[in-house]
C-alpha cells in the first residue's frame, strides 16, 4: 500500500465504495459464469486452455459414468473436473470483482444522466423539455438554479455558481460565466444560483461523463503494452507445457512397455498436470491487476485516459513539478526580522507590524503574525490614530503615518531612496543582508521611518510545503529525478530547489523552455511526467509521457494530458507514479510466484503419475514414487491436492491482486531482494506445505479412497 502518512492529498468527500460489499460480490459471482463464454475467454489464452481441459474432463467423466466405472475412480474424476471448473470460475471472479466497483460507480453516473431533462432552445426565448440523452452538439439549453447541467458545453450567456462535486468530489461551489477561462461547464454538475445559457460543444456519447463511465466501467479498457507482452510470455509458457504434457503420454507408453508394469498416463492426470503447470495464478489474475490499478488511480480522484498512462507512470525517470502550488504554498511569508545597527529587533518588529496592519495580502498578514512573537499584540486599526498608505505603482512602497512619524516598507531600492531623502545613511551591512536574502531565494522587504532612518529588513520567504523533502528523497531512492519548474530567477530557483530537496530546476521557465527540457530528457531515453493547467502548457502536457492536467485547467490542457486530476492537486503526480510502480510490481511478483510454484507441482504429480512404472516384485510403488518427497498419501490424493491448491491460490491472491503488493519507496536492488524473497522463495516453498495440508484434508475426509 502506498504510505498514506506521506500523502498530501486531501481526502475528498466522495463516498468510497468498498470492494467487498455484498452487491458487488453478488454481481461478480454472476459475471464469473457469464465470462465462461469462450469468445470472452479467448482474450486469455491461459484460462482458455484450462476451460478446454475442463470441458474434456467433463465429457470423459460423463462417458465413464455411463460405462460403469468403479465408484472410487468416478469420485476422483468428478472431483478433478469440478476443481478444474472452479479454477476457471475463480479467475473470472477475480476479474469480475475488480470491475465491480467501477461498474457500480458507472451505474450511478448513468442513472443520473438518464433522469436528467433539459430545456432546449427552439428559437429565441422558446424552450422545449427534452431528455438529456437526446441533445446534439450545437444545441443551446437553458439551465436555472437547482437544475443539472445536461451536457458539456460553453456558457454563452449568464453567470452562476455551480456545484461540481459530482465530478470532482469538491463540494465548494465555483463560479462559471460566459467568456474567458471559466466558461466551460461539465454535464452532471448542478447550477446553485442564477441561470446559464449553454451551447453544447460535444456529441452525445463523448461527454466527460460518458468518458468517465467508460473508464470506470472498464469498457474501453485496452490491454497495456506490458500486459500484452506478459500475455505473450504466458501463452508461450502454456504452449511449452502443453508440449510437455502431450509428449508425456508417448513417454509413459514407452516406459510401460519397457518396464512391464503400470499404466500409461490417463487423461485426467495429464490435464491436471497441464493445468497445474501452466501459469494459471498470474493468468487468472492478470487482468484483475490491471483493472484494479486503474481503479486505485480513480480512488485518488485521478481520471487516467488509458491504462498505458498508468504503466508509463511507473517508468517515469523525471518528474517536472511546478513550484507554485506543488512545492511551495504559493505565497511568501515573513520568517525573520533583521534590524539595522543600533535598532533592536523589537523596534523593527513594531514598525513592521504597524506598517502592515492594513495590508491584507498574505505577505502583510504574515508580517503581523511574526511580530506577535515579539510580544506585540495585534492592535485594532482604530486604536491607533493612523493614516495608512497603501501600496501604489507610483511610490512602490506602503506604510503608515502616525502623527508626524512616517513608517515605510518596500523593496530595497525604493526605501534606500526614501532614507536618503531624509538625509540619513543606508548602512552597508543592511545592503549586504538584502543581497544575501535575495541570493537565498527570499524577498527582502526594507523598513524605515523618517525619524530613525533605516530600521532593518524583513525576510520574506517562499515556504516549502512540509514533508516534501522526504518524499523527494524517496523518489531519488527509486531513481526518479525531480525538476522544479519556476518563473523565478535562477538564484531564487536554486535556493528553493535545494531547500525542498529537488535534484534540478528550470528557472525563468517559459512554455518553450519546458518543451525543450522534455525533449532533451526524452532524447536521453528518460520518461517524463508533468502537471499543467494552462493552455500554454498543452504542448508540453501532450509531449510528456505522463501529463497530469488539473481539472480547474483549461479544456485544451485537459485534452492534451493523459490524466486529469479532479482535485487539481499537482502533488498527486507523485501518487500516480507510485501507483504505476505498484501495479508493475504486483504483476511481476505474481508472475514470479506463479512460475516458482511449478517446482512443487512437479514433485506432486510426477510421482503420482509414474509411481507405478518399473515395479519390482513385492513392492506397491515403483522407484519413481521416491520423488514423492512430501510423503503424500496416494497418487490420486496427490493429483487432487495439486489441482485444489492451484485453484485455491487464485482465490487467496485476489485481495493482493486488487490491493497491489505492499510497497514502500526504496531502490531497485532492495526492492528486488525483498520481493524476490517473498514471492520467489515464497512461491517455491508455500505450495509444498499447501499441497501437503490439502492432501491430509483429502485423506481425512476420505475423498480419494481405494487408491
Amino acid at each position: 500500500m502506498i504510505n498514506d502518512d506521506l500523502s498530501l492529498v486531501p481526502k475528498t468527500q466522495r463516498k468510497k465504495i468498498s470492494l467487498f460489499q455484498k452487491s458487488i460480490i453478488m454481481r461478480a459471482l454472476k459475471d464469473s459464469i457469464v465470462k465462461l463464454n469462450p469468445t470472452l475467454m479467448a482474450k486469455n489464452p491461459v484460462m482458455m486452455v484450462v476451460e478446454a481441459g475442463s470441458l474434456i474432463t467433463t465429457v470423459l467423466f460423463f462417458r465413464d459414468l455411463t460405462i460403469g466405472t468403479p465408484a472410487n475412480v468416478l469420485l476422483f474424476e468428478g472431483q478433478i473436473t469440478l476443481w478444474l471448473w472452479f479454477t476457471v470460475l475463480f479467475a473470472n471472479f477475480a476479474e469480475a470483482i475488480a470491475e465491480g466497483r467501477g461498474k457500480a460507480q458507472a451505474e450511478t453516473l448513468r442513472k443520473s444522466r438518464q433522469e436528467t431533462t433539459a430545456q432546449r432552445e427552439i428559437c429565441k426565448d422558446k424552450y422545449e423539455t427534452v431528455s438529456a440523452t437526446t441533445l446534439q452538439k450545437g444545441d443551446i439549453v437553458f439551465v436555472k438554479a437547482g437544475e443539472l447541467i445536461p451536457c458539456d458545453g460553453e456558457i454563452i450567456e449568464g453567470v452562476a455558481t455551480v456545484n461540481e462535486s459530482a465530478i470532482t468530489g469538491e463540494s465548494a461551489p465555483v463560479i462559471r460565466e460566459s467568456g474567458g477561462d471559466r466558461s466551460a461547464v461539465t454535464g452532471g454538475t448542478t447550477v446553485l444560483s442564477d441561470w446559464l445559457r449553454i451551447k453544447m460543444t460535444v456529441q452525445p456519447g463523448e461527454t466527460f461523463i460518458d468518458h468517465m463511465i467508460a473508464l470506470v466501467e472498464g469498457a474501453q479498457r485496452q490491454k497495456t503494452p506490458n500486459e500484452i507482452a506478459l500475455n505473450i510470455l504466458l501463452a508461450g509458457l502454456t504452449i511449452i507445457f502443453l508440449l510437455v504434457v502431450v509428449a508425456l503420454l508417448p513417454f509413459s507408453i514407452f516406459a510401460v512397455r519397457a518396464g512391464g508394469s503400470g499404466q500409461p498416463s490417463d487423461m485426467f492426470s495429464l490435464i491436471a498436470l497441464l493445468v497445474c503447470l501452466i501459469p494459471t495464478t498470474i493468468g487468472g489474475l492478470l487482468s484483475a491487476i490491471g483493472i484494479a490499478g486503474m481503479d486505485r488511480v480513480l480512488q485518488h480522484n485521478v481520471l487516467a485516459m488509458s491504462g498505458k498512462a498508468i504503466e508509463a507512470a511507473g517508468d517515469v525517470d523525471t518528474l517536472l513539478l511546478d513550484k507554485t502550488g506543488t512545492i511551495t504554498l504559493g505565497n511568501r511569508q515573513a520568517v525573520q526580522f533583521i534590524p539595522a545597527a543600533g535598532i533592536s529587533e523589537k523596534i523593527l518588529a513594531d514598525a513592521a507590524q504597524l506598517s502592515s496592519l492594513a495590508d491584507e495580502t498574505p505577505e502583510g498578514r504574515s508580517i503581523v503574525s511574526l511580530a506577535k512573537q515579539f510580544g506585540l499584540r495585534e492592535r485594532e486599526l482604530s486604536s491607533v490614530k493612523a493614516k495608512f498608505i497603501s501600496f501604489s505603482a507610483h511610490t512602490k512602497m506602503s506604510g503608515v503615518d502616525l502623527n508626524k512619524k512616517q513608517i515605510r516598507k518596500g523593496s530595497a531600492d525604493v526605501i534606500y531612496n526614501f532614507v536618503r531623502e531624509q538625509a540619513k545613511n543606508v548602512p552597508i551591512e543592511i545592503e549586504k543582508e538584502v543581497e544575501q536574502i535575495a541570493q537565498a531565494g527570499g524577498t527582502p522587504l526594507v523598513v524605515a521611518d523618517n525619524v530613525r532612518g533605516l530600521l532593518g529588513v524583513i525576510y520574506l520567504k517562499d515556504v516549502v510545503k512540509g514533508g516534501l523533502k522526504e518524499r523527494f528523497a524517496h523518489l531519488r531512492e527509486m531513481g526518479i529525478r525531480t525538476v522544479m519548474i519556476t518563473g523565478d530567477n535562477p538564484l531564487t530557483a536554486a535556493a528553493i530547489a535545494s531547500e525542498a530537496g529537488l535534484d534540478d530546476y528550470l528557472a525563468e521557465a517559459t512554455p518553450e523552455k519546458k518543451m525543450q527540457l522534455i525533449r532533451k530528457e526524452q532524447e536521453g531515453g528518460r520518461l517524463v511526467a508533468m502537471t499543467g493547467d494552462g493552455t500554454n502548457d498543452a504542448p508540453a502536457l501532450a509531449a510528456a509521457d505522463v501529463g497530469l492536467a488539473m481539472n480547474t485547467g483549461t479544456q485544451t490542457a485537459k485534452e492534451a494530458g493523459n490524466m486529469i486530476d479532479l482535485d487539481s492537486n499537482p502533488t498527486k503526480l507523485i501518487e500516480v507514479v507510485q501507483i504505476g510502480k505498484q501495479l508493475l510490481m504486483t504483476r511481476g511478483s505474481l508472475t514470479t510466484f506463479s512460475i516458482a510454484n511449478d517446482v512443487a507441482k512437479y514433485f506432486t504429480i510426477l510421482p503420482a503419475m509414474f509411481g507405478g512404472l518399473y515395479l519390482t516384485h513385492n513392492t506397491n510403488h515403483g522407484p519413481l514414487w521416491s520423488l514423492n518427497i512430501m510423503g503424500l498419501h496416494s497418487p490420486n490424493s496427490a493429483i487432487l491436492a495439486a489441482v485444489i491448491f492451484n485453484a485455491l491460490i487464485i482465490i487467496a491472491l485476489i485481495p493482493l491482486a486488487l490491493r497491489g503488493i505492499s510497497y514502500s519507496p526504496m531502490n531497485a536492488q532492495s526492492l528486488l531482494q525483498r520481493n524476490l524473497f517473498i514471492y520467489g522463495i515464497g512461491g517455491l516453498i508455500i505450495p509444498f506445505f499447501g499441497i501437503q495440508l490439502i492432501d491430509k484434508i483429502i485423506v481425512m475426509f476420505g475423498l480419494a479412497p481405494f487408491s
Partner: protein
Amino acid sequence: MTLVGWIQIALYCLVLLLLTKPMGVYMTRVMEGEKTLLEPMLKPLERLIYKLSGVKPEEEMHWSTYAYALLAFSLVGALFTYAILRLQGVLPLNPMGFSTAAAPSYATAMTPDLAFNTAMSFTTNTNWQSYSGENTLSYLSQMLGLAYHNWVSAAVGMAACLALIRGFARRSAKTVGNFWQDLVRSLLYIFFPIMFAYSLFLVSQGVVQNFSPYTVASTIEGEKQIIPQGPVGSQEAIKMLGINGGGFFNANSAHPFENPTPFSNFVEMLSIFILPAGLTYVFGKMVKDTRQGWALLSTMYVLFIIGIIICYCSESFGNPNISAQNVETSTKILGDLGGNMEGKEVRFGLANSALFATITSAASCGAVNCMHDSLTPLGGLVPLLNIQLGEIVFGGVGSGLYGMLIFAILTVFIAGLMVGRTPEYVGKKIEQKDVKMAMLFVLAGSFSILVFTALGGVCELPAKCPLNSPGATYNNVNNAGPHGFSEILYCFSSCTGNNGSAFAGLTCNTPFYNLTSGLAMLIGRFLMMIPALALAGSLVQKKYVPPSRGTFPTHTWLFVGLLISVILIVGALTFFPALTLGPIVEHFIMHTLKVF
C-alpha cells in the same frame, strides 16, 4: 573422487577465467573493425576476398538482410555438401571406391537420407554422425564436404551472435552489421591464427599430421594391427575451437593420436570454452558495461560447476552393483581411477573424463574423451541436461551467448517488473516483439526435443518398413528399460542442441532417424537463430535508457541467481518429466541392483 581430481578441475576453471578477458579484448577489436597486431599481414588478404567476392563491407545490413545472407550462405553450403556426398562415387579422391560398384563389402551406402542428415549435421555445426567415416566417405567428401563446414559454421554462429550484441549496443539504429564482413573477419583474424598455433601445439604433443598410409604393426601376441594415420592435427584444432566435435577417428578425443597427453587434453578442453567465454567479455565491452559480461560468465560458471560436481561425484561413486560383487571401486589418491570406469580412458581418469563430458555437452561441441552411454545414470544426466538447457552454458561459438542473452531477457521480463518498472536489459526496453522472439526461441527447442523423442518412442512402423528397417522406432534402441528411452532422448536433444555427441546404442542410420534428427538439427539451428536475429533487429532500433537507482540491476549476484533459477525452471522443468523416465528412474533402479 580425489584431491588431485578436484585440483585439476579447479585449475581448469581458473585458467579459463584468466584467458577470458584477453580473448575478449582481442575479439572485440576484431569485430569492431579496429587495428590488431595481425592487421598488416591479413588486411591485404581481407581486401582481396572482398574484391573477389564483390562484397562491400561498409554496407550495413538490416536484420532481415543479415538473416537472408546468413541463410543463403548456409543453404548453398548444405546443398554443396549434399551434392558432394551423393556424387562421391564419380568424384576423385575415392580410392576405396565408396558409392561405386567397387565398394568393399563392409561399406555403408550413401543414401539420400544419410546425405541429407550429414549435410544438415555439418551445416548446423552439429557434427552428428549417423555413419562411420572410414567405411562411408571418400577423402574428398571428408575434406571438402565436411571439413569446410567445421570452419564456416562456427563463424556463422559467431556472426549471428555479433548481430544480437550490436542490437544491444547500438542506439536508435537500423542495421546490425554486415554478415559477409563478420564472417570473413572472424575467420581471418580469430579462427586462422589460433588454429595455426594450436595445430602446431597439438603436433608437438604427438598428434599425427601426415598423409601416410595406414601403419601395420605386430602386437605382442603376434596379431596384425592396422594403425590409421592422417592429417589429424589441423582437423583436431578446428574440431575443438569451432565447437564442432566430429572426430577424425571414431574414438574421438579418447584416441591417442587425437589427444595424446594430459597437457593436450587440458588444452583441448580449454579450446572448447575459450571462444564462448571470450564472447561474454565482447558483449560487456560492446554494451559499454563489462560487468554485464561478467554476470553472464558467472551464470555459465555456476551452472557448469554444478554440472561437473554432480558428474564427477556420481562417476566416482560408481555402480553399487559392482561393489556388491566385492570389487574394489574406491578411487585411489593419485590414480583417480575406480568408481565407474566403463567407457573411460585409463590415461585420463575420472576427473578429466567427467570434466570433458561436462564441457563438451555444456558447449555444443560433442567431442568426447569417454563414452557418454557408459556414464552412470546421474553422470549421464548432466550432459543430457546441459544440452537440453539450450546449449547456453558457454554453448556453441556465438549460439551459446545468444541463447544465454535470450534467457537473460526472459529473466528480466519475468522478474524485472518486481522493481516497479517495465523491464529493460542493458538499457533496452524489453517489449512485445522481444518477448515474442525469445519465446519462439525457447519453443523451437522444446518442440523439437519433445515431439521427436515422442515419435521415436512410440511409432509403430511395420517390420521391414522402408522408413525404418527394424520396424517400430523404439526397436532401434539396443538397451532395455529406461536406458533405451535415454538414448532416444539424448539423440534428439543432441541434434536439436547442435551438439553431436550421442548415447551410442541407438541404430540411427535409417531413413526415419536420419530425417527426424536432420530436421531437429535444422530447427535447433535456424529456428533459434532467426528469432535471435529478429530480436537484434528489434533491439537495435530502441533508444538507450540510462540506468538509475530504480533500474533493475543486471550485473549483481542476485541477478545471476535469478537467471539461473529461470534457466532451471523454464529450461530444465520442461524436460523434467522426460528425465524422470530416463536417467532418474534408471538411477533409482540401479540402486535396487538392476542395470540396463
